[in-house]
Protein backbone atom coordinates (compact mmCIF):
# COMPACT_ATOMS: atom_id res chain seq x y z
CA UNK A 1 0.00 0.00 0.00
CA UNK A 2 2.78 2.40 0.94
CA UNK A 3 4.58 1.62 -2.29
CA UNK A 4 1.55 2.80 -4.23
CA UNK A 5 1.63 6.22 -2.58
CA UNK A 6 5.39 6.42 -2.92
CA UNK A 7 5.03 5.91 -6.65
CA UNK A 8 2.07 8.28 -6.86
CA UNK A 9 4.03 11.05 -5.15
CA UNK A 10 7.01 10.52 -7.40
CA UNK A 11 4.82 10.62 -10.51
CA UNK A 12 3.04 13.75 -9.36
CA UNK A 13 6.36 15.43 -8.73
CA UNK A 14 7.58 14.49 -12.16
CA UNK A 15 4.42 15.95 -13.72
CA UNK A 16 5.48 19.30 -12.47
CA UNK A 17 9.04 19.07 -13.65
CA UNK A 18 7.85 18.69 -17.23
CA UNK A 19 5.86 21.33 -19.10
CA UNK A 20 3.24 18.88 -20.34
CA UNK A 21 1.11 18.94 -17.19
CA UNK A 22 1.09 22.74 -17.13
CA UNK A 23 0.18 22.98 -20.79
CA UNK A 24 -2.61 20.40 -20.50
CA UNK A 25 -3.96 22.00 -17.34
CA UNK A 26 -4.01 25.47 -18.87
CA UNK A 27 -5.57 24.31 -22.11
CA UNK A 28 -8.24 22.49 -20.19
CA UNK A 29 -9.11 25.51 -18.07
CA UNK A 30 -9.20 27.84 -21.05
CA UNK A 31 -11.36 25.53 -23.14
CA UNK A 32 -13.80 24.65 -20.40
CA UNK A 33 -14.02 28.34 -19.48
CA UNK A 34 -14.93 29.03 -23.07
CA UNK A 35 -17.65 26.37 -23.04
CA UNK A 36 -19.18 27.82 -19.91
CA UNK A 37 -19.18 31.35 -21.25
CA UNK A 38 -20.87 30.13 -24.40
CA UNK A 39 -23.66 28.76 -22.25
CA UNK A 40 -23.96 31.94 -20.31
CA UNK A 41 -23.79 34.45 -23.13
CA UNK A 42 -25.24 32.61 -26.09
CA UNK A 43 -27.82 30.14 -24.87
CA UNK A 44 -28.53 32.35 -21.84
CA UNK A 45 -29.53 29.28 -19.97
CA UNK A 46 -27.97 28.20 -16.70
CA UNK A 47 -27.53 24.59 -17.71
CA UNK A 48 -24.47 22.39 -17.77
CA UNK A 49 -25.45 19.89 -20.43
CA UNK A 50 -23.69 21.37 -23.44
CA UNK A 51 -20.57 22.17 -21.48
CA UNK A 52 -20.38 18.66 -20.11
CA UNK A 53 -20.16 17.01 -23.52
CA UNK A 54 -17.65 19.59 -24.69
CA UNK A 55 -15.52 18.99 -21.62
CA UNK A 56 -15.48 15.28 -22.24
CA UNK A 57 -14.42 15.82 -25.86
CA UNK A 58 -11.62 18.06 -24.65
CA UNK A 59 -10.50 15.35 -22.26
CA UNK A 60 -10.56 12.84 -25.04
CA UNK A 61 -7.80 14.85 -26.69
CA UNK A 62 -5.88 15.89 -23.59
CA UNK A 63 -5.87 12.77 -21.48
CA UNK A 64 -3.50 10.73 -23.67
CA UNK A 65 -0.99 13.55 -23.16
CA UNK A 66 -1.13 13.02 -19.41
CA UNK A 67 -0.62 9.28 -19.60
CA UNK A 68 1.74 8.94 -22.56
CA UNK A 69 4.95 9.15 -20.52
CA UNK A 70 3.99 6.78 -17.74
CA UNK A 71 5.57 3.60 -19.02
CA UNK A 72 7.05 4.55 -22.38
CA UNK A 73 9.56 6.83 -20.69
CA UNK A 74 10.51 4.16 -18.16
CA UNK A 75 11.10 1.71 -20.95
CA UNK A 76 13.10 4.12 -23.03
CA UNK A 77 15.32 5.21 -20.16
CA UNK A 78 15.70 1.66 -18.84
CA UNK A 79 14.34 2.74 -15.45
CA UNK A 80 11.65 0.08 -15.71
CA UNK A 81 14.37 -2.44 -14.91
CA UNK A 82 15.42 -0.31 -11.95
CA UNK A 83 11.85 -0.10 -10.71
CA UNK A 84 10.82 -3.70 -11.33
CA UNK A 85 13.81 -5.11 -9.48
CA UNK A 86 12.78 -3.24 -6.33
CA UNK A 87 10.49 -5.00 -3.87
CA UNK A 88 7.26 -3.65 -5.38
CA UNK A 89 4.48 -5.56 -7.05
CA UNK A 90 3.64 -4.83 -10.66
CA UNK A 91 0.10 -3.97 -9.64
CA UNK A 92 1.39 -1.46 -7.07
CA UNK A 93 3.40 0.28 -9.76
CA UNK A 94 0.32 0.35 -11.99
CA UNK A 95 -2.01 1.71 -9.31
CA UNK A 96 0.57 4.25 -8.18
CA UNK A 97 0.79 5.66 -11.66
CA UNK A 98 -2.94 5.51 -12.25
CA UNK A 99 -3.57 7.36 -9.02
CA UNK A 100 -1.12 10.11 -9.97
CA UNK A 101 -2.84 10.71 -13.30
CA UNK A 102 -6.21 10.52 -11.55
CA UNK A 103 -5.20 13.16 -9.00
CA UNK A 104 -4.02 15.50 -11.73
CA UNK A 105 -7.28 14.97 -13.61
CA UNK A 106 -9.45 15.43 -10.54
CA UNK A 107 -7.64 18.68 -9.78
CA UNK A 108 -8.30 19.84 -13.32
CA UNK A 109 -11.94 18.90 -13.09
CA UNK A 110 -12.35 20.43 -9.64
CA UNK A 111 -11.08 23.78 -10.90
CA UNK A 112 -14.06 23.98 -13.25
CA UNK A 113 -16.29 24.11 -10.19
CA UNK A 114 -15.46 27.81 -10.18
CA UNK A 115 -17.51 28.11 -13.35
CA UNK A 116 -20.39 26.27 -11.70
CA UNK A 117 -20.18 28.75 -8.87
CA UNK A 118 -20.47 31.60 -11.38
CA UNK A 119 -23.39 29.79 -12.99
CA UNK A 120 -25.23 29.82 -9.69
CA UNK A 121 -24.62 33.58 -9.38
CA UNK A 122 -26.27 34.27 -12.74
CA UNK A 123 -29.09 31.88 -12.64
CA UNK A 124 -30.67 29.16 -10.69
CA UNK A 125 -29.37 25.95 -12.24
CA UNK A 126 -30.73 22.57 -11.28
CA UNK A 127 -27.80 21.20 -9.29
CA UNK A 128 -28.82 17.53 -9.53
CA UNK A 129 -27.92 16.98 -13.17
CA UNK A 130 -24.76 19.04 -12.69
CA UNK A 131 -23.42 16.77 -9.99
CA UNK A 132 -24.39 13.63 -11.88
CA UNK A 133 -22.71 15.00 -15.01
CA UNK A 134 -19.58 15.63 -12.96
CA UNK A 135 -19.66 12.07 -11.71
CA UNK A 136 -20.03 10.87 -15.29
CA UNK A 137 -17.13 13.00 -16.51
CA UNK A 138 -15.02 11.76 -13.61
CA UNK A 139 -15.67 8.09 -14.36
CA UNK A 140 -15.27 8.57 -18.07
CA UNK A 141 -12.03 10.54 -17.58
CA UNK A 142 -10.61 7.81 -15.34
CA UNK A 143 -11.44 5.32 -18.08
CA UNK A 144 -9.49 7.43 -20.55
CA UNK A 145 -6.57 7.34 -18.14
CA UNK A 146 -6.64 3.55 -17.82
CA UNK A 147 -6.70 3.19 -21.58
CA UNK A 148 -3.95 5.78 -22.00
CA UNK A 149 -1.73 3.96 -19.50
CA UNK A 150 -2.22 0.78 -21.46
CA UNK A 151 -1.13 2.60 -24.62
CA UNK A 152 2.02 3.80 -22.89
CA UNK A 153 3.00 0.25 -21.97
CA UNK A 154 3.06 -0.64 -25.65
CA UNK A 155 5.90 1.52 -26.88
CA UNK A 156 9.06 3.32 -25.84
CA UNK A 157 8.00 6.38 -27.77
CA UNK A 158 5.85 8.94 -25.93
CA UNK A 159 4.37 10.42 -29.08
CA UNK A 160 3.37 7.03 -30.42
CA UNK A 161 1.92 6.21 -26.99
CA UNK A 162 -0.17 9.38 -27.16
CA UNK A 163 -1.35 8.62 -30.67
CA UNK A 164 -2.27 5.02 -29.81
CA UNK A 165 -3.95 6.22 -26.62
CA UNK A 166 -5.97 8.77 -28.53
CA UNK A 167 -6.90 6.24 -31.21
CA UNK A 168 -8.08 3.71 -28.63
CA UNK A 169 -10.10 6.25 -26.68
CA UNK A 170 -11.66 7.58 -29.85
CA UNK A 171 -12.43 4.12 -31.14
CA UNK A 172 -14.17 3.12 -27.92
CA UNK A 173 -15.94 6.46 -27.88
CA UNK A 174 -17.48 6.22 -31.36
CA UNK A 175 -18.11 2.50 -31.19
CA UNK A 176 -21.86 3.00 -30.92
CA UNK A 177 -22.01 5.29 -33.96
CA UNK A 178 -21.08 2.55 -36.40
CA UNK A 179 -23.64 0.18 -34.97
CA UNK A 180 -26.33 1.51 -37.31
CA UNK A 181 -25.38 -0.75 -40.20
CA UNK A 182 -25.16 -3.92 -38.15
CA UNK A 183 -27.57 -6.51 -36.92
CA UNK A 184 -29.53 -6.04 -33.72
CA UNK A 185 -27.34 -8.13 -31.41
CA UNK A 186 -24.07 -6.71 -32.74
CA UNK A 187 -25.25 -3.16 -32.50
CA UNK A 188 -26.43 -3.63 -28.96
CA UNK A 189 -23.11 -5.11 -28.00
CA UNK A 190 -21.21 -2.29 -29.65
CA UNK A 191 -23.22 0.38 -27.95
CA UNK A 192 -22.74 -1.42 -24.66
CA UNK A 193 -18.98 -1.41 -25.12
CA UNK A 194 -18.94 2.20 -26.24
CA UNK A 195 -17.76 4.74 -23.68
CA UNK A 196 -20.12 7.44 -24.93
CA UNK A 197 -23.43 5.62 -24.49
CA UNK A 198 -22.87 5.24 -20.77
CA UNK A 199 -22.33 8.94 -20.29
CA UNK A 200 -25.72 9.97 -21.62
CA UNK A 201 -27.58 9.08 -18.45
CA UNK A 202 -25.21 11.03 -16.22
CA UNK A 203 -25.53 14.15 -18.36
CA UNK A 204 -29.32 13.93 -18.25
CA UNK A 205 -29.16 13.69 -14.49
CA UNK A 206 -29.81 9.98 -14.16
CA UNK A 207 -27.26 7.87 -12.35
CA UNK A 208 -27.60 4.25 -13.41
CA UNK A 209 -25.76 1.66 -11.38
CA UNK A 210 -25.24 -0.19 -14.66
CA UNK A 211 -23.24 2.71 -16.05
CA UNK A 212 -21.16 3.13 -12.91
CA UNK A 213 -20.34 -0.58 -12.97
CA UNK A 214 -19.47 -0.31 -16.66
CA UNK A 215 -16.91 2.44 -16.09
CA UNK A 216 -15.40 0.79 -13.04
CA UNK A 217 -14.98 -2.53 -14.79
CA UNK A 218 -13.57 -0.72 -17.82
CA UNK A 219 -10.89 0.83 -15.60
CA UNK A 220 -10.07 -2.41 -13.81
CA UNK A 221 -9.93 -4.30 -17.09
CA UNK A 222 -7.47 -1.94 -18.77
CA UNK A 223 -5.25 -1.65 -15.72
CA UNK A 224 -5.13 -5.42 -15.58
CA UNK A 225 -4.23 -5.62 -19.26
CA UNK A 226 -1.55 -2.99 -18.65
CA UNK A 227 0.00 -5.06 -15.87
CA UNK A 228 0.08 -8.02 -18.23
CA UNK A 229 1.54 -5.83 -20.92
CA UNK A 230 4.55 -4.81 -18.81
CA UNK A 231 5.00 -8.43 -17.82
CA UNK A 232 5.27 -9.43 -21.44
CA UNK A 233 9.05 -9.18 -21.20
CA UNK A 234 8.83 -12.28 -19.06
CA UNK A 235 7.24 -14.42 -21.72
CA UNK A 236 9.46 -13.50 -24.62
Amino acid at each position, binding site marked *: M*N*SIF*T*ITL*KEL*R*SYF*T*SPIAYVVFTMFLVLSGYFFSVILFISKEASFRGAASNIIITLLFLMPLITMRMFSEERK*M*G*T*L*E*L*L*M*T*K*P*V*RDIEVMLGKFLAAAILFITMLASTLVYIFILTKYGNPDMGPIWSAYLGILLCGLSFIALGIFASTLTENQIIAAVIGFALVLLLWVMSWISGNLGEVDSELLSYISLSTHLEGFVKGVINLKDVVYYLSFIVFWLFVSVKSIEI*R*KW*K
Partner: protein
Amino acid sequence: MIKASKLTKKYGTKAAIQDVSFNIDKGEVVGFLGPNGAGKTTTMRILTGYIPPTSGKVEIGGLDVFDDSLEVRRKLGYLPENTPLYLDMDVEVFLKYIAALKKVSTDKRSNHVSKIMKVCGIDNVRQSTIKTLSKGYKQRVGIAQALIGNPEYLILDEPTIGLDPKQIIEIRELIKSLAEDKTIILSTHILPEVSMTCSRVIIIAEGKIVAEDTPNNLENRLSGVAKVLLTVKGPGEEISSKLKEISGVKRVNIEKTQASDLVDLEVASQKDVDIRGQLAQAVVQNNWDLLEMRREVLGLEEIFLKLTTKE
Protein backbone atom coordinates in the same frame (compact mmCIF):
# COMPACT_ATOMS: atom_id res chain seq x y z
CA MET B 1 24.62 -17.92 -1.17
CA ILE B 2 23.62 -17.63 -4.79
CA LYS B 3 22.87 -20.83 -6.59
CA ALA B 4 22.23 -20.84 -10.33
CA SER B 5 21.45 -24.17 -11.87
CA LYS B 6 21.32 -24.91 -15.56
CA LEU B 7 20.12 -21.50 -16.65
CA THR B 8 19.13 -21.29 -20.26
CA LYS B 9 17.57 -18.25 -21.85
CA LYS B 10 16.32 -18.35 -25.39
CA TYR B 11 15.32 -15.37 -27.47
CA GLY B 12 13.32 -16.96 -30.24
CA THR B 13 15.39 -19.97 -31.15
CA LYS B 14 18.71 -18.36 -30.34
CA ALA B 15 20.07 -19.12 -26.88
CA ALA B 16 21.56 -16.08 -25.16
CA ILE B 17 22.86 -18.33 -22.40
CA GLN B 18 22.95 -22.09 -22.21
CA ASP B 19 23.22 -24.36 -19.17
CA VAL B 20 24.88 -21.78 -16.99
CA SER B 21 25.42 -23.07 -13.46
CA PHE B 22 27.45 -21.63 -10.61
CA ASN B 23 27.45 -21.23 -6.86
CA ILE B 24 28.54 -18.12 -5.10
CA ASP B 25 29.23 -18.23 -1.40
CA LYS B 26 28.54 -15.57 1.15
CA GLY B 27 31.18 -12.87 1.14
CA GLU B 28 32.60 -13.64 -2.28
CA VAL B 29 33.23 -11.03 -4.94
CA VAL B 30 32.76 -12.70 -8.27
CA GLY B 31 33.63 -11.17 -11.61
CA PHE B 32 31.65 -12.04 -14.69
CA LEU B 33 33.97 -11.66 -17.59
CA GLY B 34 33.10 -12.02 -21.23
CA PRO B 35 33.14 -10.30 -24.60
CA ASN B 36 30.16 -8.34 -25.96
CA GLY B 37 27.07 -10.45 -26.34
CA ALA B 38 28.42 -13.23 -24.15
CA GLY B 39 25.32 -13.25 -21.97
CA LYS B 40 26.46 -11.38 -18.87
CA THR B 41 23.54 -8.98 -18.76
CA THR B 42 21.08 -11.76 -19.54
CA THR B 43 22.44 -13.81 -16.63
CA MET B 44 22.24 -10.86 -14.25
CA ARG B 45 18.68 -10.05 -15.28
CA ILE B 46 17.72 -13.60 -14.47
CA LEU B 47 19.51 -13.46 -11.12
CA THR B 48 17.56 -10.34 -10.18
CA GLY B 49 14.26 -11.81 -11.35
CA TYR B 50 13.77 -9.15 -14.00
CA ILE B 51 13.36 -11.81 -16.66
CA PRO B 52 12.73 -15.52 -16.12
CA PRO B 53 15.02 -18.12 -17.63
CA THR B 54 13.63 -20.39 -20.34
CA SER B 55 14.73 -23.23 -18.09
CA GLY B 56 16.75 -23.65 -14.94
CA LYS B 57 16.43 -21.94 -11.58
CA VAL B 58 18.10 -19.47 -9.28
CA GLU B 59 18.16 -19.49 -5.51
CA ILE B 60 19.37 -16.54 -3.50
CA GLY B 61 19.78 -17.04 0.23
CA GLY B 62 17.76 -20.22 -0.06
CA LEU B 63 14.82 -18.48 -1.73
CA ASP B 64 13.70 -19.06 -5.29
CA VAL B 65 14.07 -15.86 -7.28
CA PHE B 66 10.69 -16.30 -8.97
CA ASP B 67 8.59 -17.94 -6.30
CA ASP B 68 9.75 -15.57 -3.55
CA SER B 69 10.50 -12.71 -5.83
CA LEU B 70 9.57 -9.87 -3.47
CA GLU B 71 11.53 -11.31 -0.56
CA VAL B 72 14.60 -11.82 -2.76
CA ARG B 73 14.33 -8.31 -4.18
CA ARG B 74 14.44 -6.86 -0.67
CA LYS B 75 17.86 -8.42 -0.14
CA LEU B 76 19.18 -7.44 -3.52
CA GLY B 77 20.92 -4.32 -4.74
CA TYR B 78 21.10 -4.11 -8.51
CA LEU B 79 22.79 -1.75 -10.90
CA PRO B 80 21.35 -2.50 -14.34
CA GLU B 81 23.42 -2.15 -17.50
CA ASN B 82 23.89 1.46 -18.67
CA THR B 83 22.91 2.85 -15.25
CA PRO B 84 19.30 3.86 -15.82
CA LEU B 85 18.27 6.76 -13.57
CA TYR B 86 15.38 9.21 -13.31
CA LEU B 87 17.22 12.09 -14.88
CA ASP B 88 14.76 14.79 -13.83
CA MET B 89 15.05 14.02 -10.13
CA ASP B 90 17.52 15.50 -7.68
CA VAL B 91 20.08 13.06 -6.32
CA GLU B 92 18.81 13.06 -2.75
CA VAL B 93 15.15 12.98 -3.71
CA PHE B 94 15.86 10.07 -6.02
CA LEU B 95 17.71 8.10 -3.37
CA LYS B 96 14.92 8.73 -0.87
CA TYR B 97 12.44 7.45 -3.42
CA ILE B 98 14.47 4.28 -3.84
CA ALA B 99 14.73 4.00 -0.04
CA ALA B 100 10.93 4.17 0.21
CA LEU B 101 10.58 1.46 -2.44
CA LYS B 102 13.15 -0.61 -0.56
CA LYS B 103 10.98 -0.25 2.55
CA VAL B 104 13.54 1.63 4.60
CA SER B 105 11.42 2.98 7.46
CA THR B 106 10.49 6.66 7.24
CA ASP B 107 12.39 7.76 10.34
CA LYS B 108 15.64 6.14 9.22
CA ARG B 109 15.44 7.20 5.60
CA SER B 110 17.24 10.56 5.80
CA ASN B 111 20.13 9.20 7.80
CA HIS B 112 20.51 6.13 5.67
CA VAL B 113 20.52 8.11 2.44
CA SER B 114 23.05 10.62 3.83
CA LYS B 115 25.34 7.83 4.88
CA ILE B 116 25.24 6.18 1.48
CA MET B 117 25.80 9.48 -0.30
CA LYS B 118 28.94 9.91 1.78
CA VAL B 119 30.16 6.40 1.09
CA CYS B 120 29.71 6.94 -2.64
CA GLY B 121 31.17 10.43 -2.59
CA ILE B 122 28.09 12.18 -3.91
CA ASP B 123 27.00 14.23 -0.90
CA ASN B 124 28.40 17.35 -2.56
CA VAL B 125 25.88 16.96 -5.43
CA ARG B 126 22.88 15.94 -3.32
CA GLN B 127 20.82 18.90 -4.55
CA SER B 128 21.76 18.54 -8.22
CA THR B 129 19.40 17.25 -10.84
CA ILE B 130 20.75 13.92 -12.00
CA LYS B 131 20.82 14.89 -15.67
CA THR B 132 23.29 17.68 -14.93
CA LEU B 133 25.83 15.28 -13.43
CA SER B 134 28.89 13.98 -15.23
CA LYS B 135 28.94 10.37 -16.31
CA GLY B 136 31.12 9.33 -13.40
CA TYR B 137 28.80 10.92 -10.89
CA LYS B 138 25.76 9.34 -12.52
CA GLN B 139 27.55 6.02 -12.17
CA ARG B 140 28.06 6.70 -8.47
CA VAL B 141 24.40 7.57 -8.05
CA GLY B 142 23.63 4.25 -9.75
CA ILE B 143 25.83 2.39 -7.31
CA ALA B 144 24.38 4.39 -4.41
CA GLN B 145 20.83 3.36 -5.31
CA ALA B 146 21.97 -0.27 -5.38
CA LEU B 147 23.31 0.13 -1.85
CA ILE B 148 20.10 1.57 -0.42
CA GLY B 149 18.51 -0.70 2.14
CA ASN B 150 21.78 -2.47 2.97
CA PRO B 151 21.25 -5.40 0.63
CA GLU B 152 23.15 -8.59 1.37
CA TYR B 153 23.65 -9.23 -2.31
CA LEU B 154 24.95 -6.75 -4.85
CA ILE B 155 24.69 -7.31 -8.56
CA LEU B 156 26.49 -4.70 -10.63
CA ASP B 157 26.41 -4.75 -14.41
CA GLU B 158 29.56 -3.02 -15.63
CA PRO B 159 29.96 -0.64 -12.71
CA THR B 160 33.06 1.09 -14.05
CA ILE B 161 32.20 1.47 -17.71
CA GLY B 162 32.88 4.91 -19.13
CA LEU B 163 34.75 6.25 -16.14
CA ASP B 164 38.13 7.96 -16.19
CA PRO B 165 41.07 6.01 -14.71
CA LYS B 166 40.98 7.90 -11.43
CA GLN B 167 37.30 7.24 -10.93
CA ILE B 168 37.70 3.61 -11.93
CA ILE B 169 40.18 3.21 -9.11
CA GLU B 170 37.83 4.96 -6.70
CA ILE B 171 34.89 2.78 -7.65
CA ARG B 172 37.04 -0.34 -7.33
CA GLU B 173 38.10 0.76 -3.89
CA LEU B 174 34.48 1.34 -3.04
CA ILE B 175 33.51 -2.13 -4.21
CA LYS B 176 36.37 -3.66 -2.26
CA SER B 177 35.31 -1.85 0.88
CA LEU B 178 31.76 -3.14 0.42
CA ALA B 179 33.00 -6.68 0.01
CA GLU B 180 33.47 -7.04 3.73
CA ASP B 181 29.85 -7.83 4.49
CA LYS B 182 28.26 -8.42 1.12
CA THR B 183 28.18 -10.98 -1.64
CA ILE B 184 28.95 -9.20 -4.88
CA ILE B 185 28.68 -10.12 -8.54
CA LEU B 186 29.97 -7.67 -11.09
CA SER B 187 30.37 -7.92 -14.83
CA THR B 188 33.06 -6.33 -16.88
CA HIS B 189 35.10 -6.47 -20.06
CA ILE B 190 38.13 -5.15 -18.32
CA LEU B 191 40.58 -7.75 -17.14
CA PRO B 192 42.66 -5.92 -14.58
CA GLU B 193 39.40 -5.10 -12.89
CA VAL B 194 38.74 -8.71 -12.08
CA SER B 195 42.19 -9.47 -10.79
CA MET B 196 42.01 -6.35 -8.63
CA THR B 197 38.55 -6.61 -7.16
CA CYS B 198 37.36 -10.16 -7.42
CA SER B 199 38.06 -13.28 -5.44
CA ARG B 200 36.79 -15.41 -8.27
CA VAL B 201 36.29 -15.06 -12.02
CA ILE B 202 33.64 -16.65 -14.16
CA ILE B 203 34.51 -16.34 -17.81
CA ILE B 204 31.55 -16.61 -20.10
CA ALA B 205 31.61 -16.74 -23.88
CA GLU B 206 28.76 -17.24 -26.32
CA GLY B 207 26.38 -18.01 -23.51
CA LYS B 208 28.45 -20.68 -21.83
CA ILE B 209 30.81 -20.72 -18.89
CA VAL B 210 34.27 -21.49 -20.22
CA ALA B 211 36.33 -21.10 -17.07
CA GLU B 212 35.85 -20.45 -13.40
CA ASP B 213 38.60 -19.92 -10.86
CA THR B 214 40.50 -17.37 -8.81
CA PRO B 215 42.31 -14.82 -10.96
CA ASN B 216 45.66 -16.24 -9.78
CA ASN B 217 44.83 -19.86 -10.48
CA LEU B 218 43.54 -19.00 -13.90
CA GLU B 219 46.77 -17.31 -14.71
CA ASN B 220 48.79 -20.23 -13.46
CA ARG B 221 46.70 -22.94 -14.98
CA LEU B 222 46.57 -21.56 -18.44
CA SER B 223 49.96 -20.04 -18.61
CA GLY B 224 52.05 -23.13 -18.04
CA VAL B 225 53.96 -22.00 -21.10
CA ALA B 226 56.39 -19.13 -21.36
CA LYS B 227 57.49 -17.70 -24.66
CA VAL B 228 60.84 -16.28 -25.67
CA LEU B 229 60.88 -14.10 -28.74
CA LEU B 230 64.20 -13.89 -30.60
CA THR B 231 65.53 -11.98 -33.53
CA VAL B 232 68.60 -13.60 -35.00
CA LYS B 233 70.75 -12.88 -38.04
CA GLY B 234 71.34 -16.19 -39.78
CA PRO B 235 69.69 -19.07 -41.71
CA GLY B 236 66.20 -19.65 -40.38
CA GLU B 237 65.76 -23.42 -40.65
CA GLU B 238 69.18 -24.19 -39.30
CA ILE B 239 68.74 -21.93 -36.27
CA SER B 240 65.39 -23.47 -35.57
CA SER B 241 66.70 -27.02 -35.53
CA LYS B 242 69.68 -26.09 -33.37
CA LEU B 243 67.47 -24.39 -30.75
CA LYS B 244 65.17 -27.38 -30.58
CA GLU B 245 68.04 -29.45 -29.22
CA ILE B 246 68.22 -27.37 -26.04
CA SER B 247 66.60 -29.10 -23.10
CA GLY B 248 63.47 -27.40 -21.81
CA VAL B 249 62.45 -26.14 -25.23
CA LYS B 250 59.04 -27.39 -26.26
CA ARG B 251 58.55 -25.82 -29.59
CA VAL B 252 60.21 -23.40 -31.98
CA ASN B 253 58.27 -21.40 -34.53
CA ILE B 254 59.71 -19.21 -37.20
CA GLU B 255 57.50 -16.17 -36.90
CA LYS B 256 58.67 -14.43 -40.02
CA THR B 257 61.77 -14.05 -42.08
CA GLN B 258 62.54 -10.41 -42.26
CA ALA B 259 64.34 -8.59 -45.01
CA SER B 260 67.92 -9.76 -45.73
CA ASP B 261 68.85 -12.59 -43.37
CA LEU B 262 67.03 -11.67 -40.15
CA VAL B 263 64.71 -14.27 -38.58
CA ASP B 264 62.13 -13.83 -35.84
CA LEU B 265 61.60 -16.94 -33.77
CA GLU B 266 59.17 -17.86 -31.02
CA VAL B 267 60.48 -20.42 -28.59
CA ALA B 268 58.07 -22.00 -26.15
CA SER B 269 59.30 -23.49 -22.90
CA GLN B 270 58.18 -24.63 -19.49
CA LYS B 271 57.12 -21.60 -17.48
CA ASP B 272 59.30 -22.32 -14.52
CA VAL B 273 62.59 -22.64 -16.39
CA ASP B 274 64.34 -19.68 -17.91
CA ILE B 275 66.12 -20.84 -21.07
CA ARG B 276 67.32 -17.45 -22.20
CA GLY B 277 70.92 -18.15 -21.22
CA GLN B 278 71.11 -21.38 -23.19
CA LEU B 279 69.43 -19.82 -26.19
CA ALA B 280 71.92 -16.96 -26.27
CA GLN B 281 74.82 -19.37 -25.97
CA ALA B 282 73.58 -21.58 -28.76
CA VAL B 283 73.21 -18.64 -31.10
CA VAL B 284 76.62 -17.21 -30.32
CA GLN B 285 78.38 -20.59 -30.57
CA ASN B 286 77.10 -20.98 -34.11
CA ASN B 287 78.35 -17.52 -35.03
CA TRP B 288 74.96 -16.06 -35.64
CA ASP B 289 74.14 -12.61 -34.32
CA LEU B 290 71.59 -12.27 -31.55
CA LEU B 291 69.81 -8.98 -32.12
CA GLU B 292 66.93 -9.17 -29.66
CA MET B 293 65.48 -11.47 -27.03
CA ARG B 294 62.37 -11.10 -24.87
CA ARG B 295 60.51 -13.44 -22.49
CA GLU B 296 56.72 -13.38 -22.12
CA VAL B 297 54.38 -15.11 -19.72
CA LEU B 298 50.72 -15.30 -20.70
CA GLY B 299 48.68 -12.75 -18.77
CA LEU B 300 44.98 -12.74 -18.02
CA GLU B 301 44.50 -10.81 -21.21
CA GLU B 302 45.78 -13.64 -23.41
CA ILE B 303 44.00 -16.23 -21.34
CA PHE B 304 40.79 -14.35 -21.82
CA LEU B 305 41.32 -14.17 -25.57
CA LYS B 306 42.34 -17.78 -25.70
CA LEU B 307 39.23 -18.88 -23.85
CA THR B 308 36.73 -16.68 -25.58
CA THR B 309 37.82 -16.86 -29.18
CA LYS B 310 37.37 -19.94 -31.23
CA GLU B 311 40.36 -21.35 -33.07
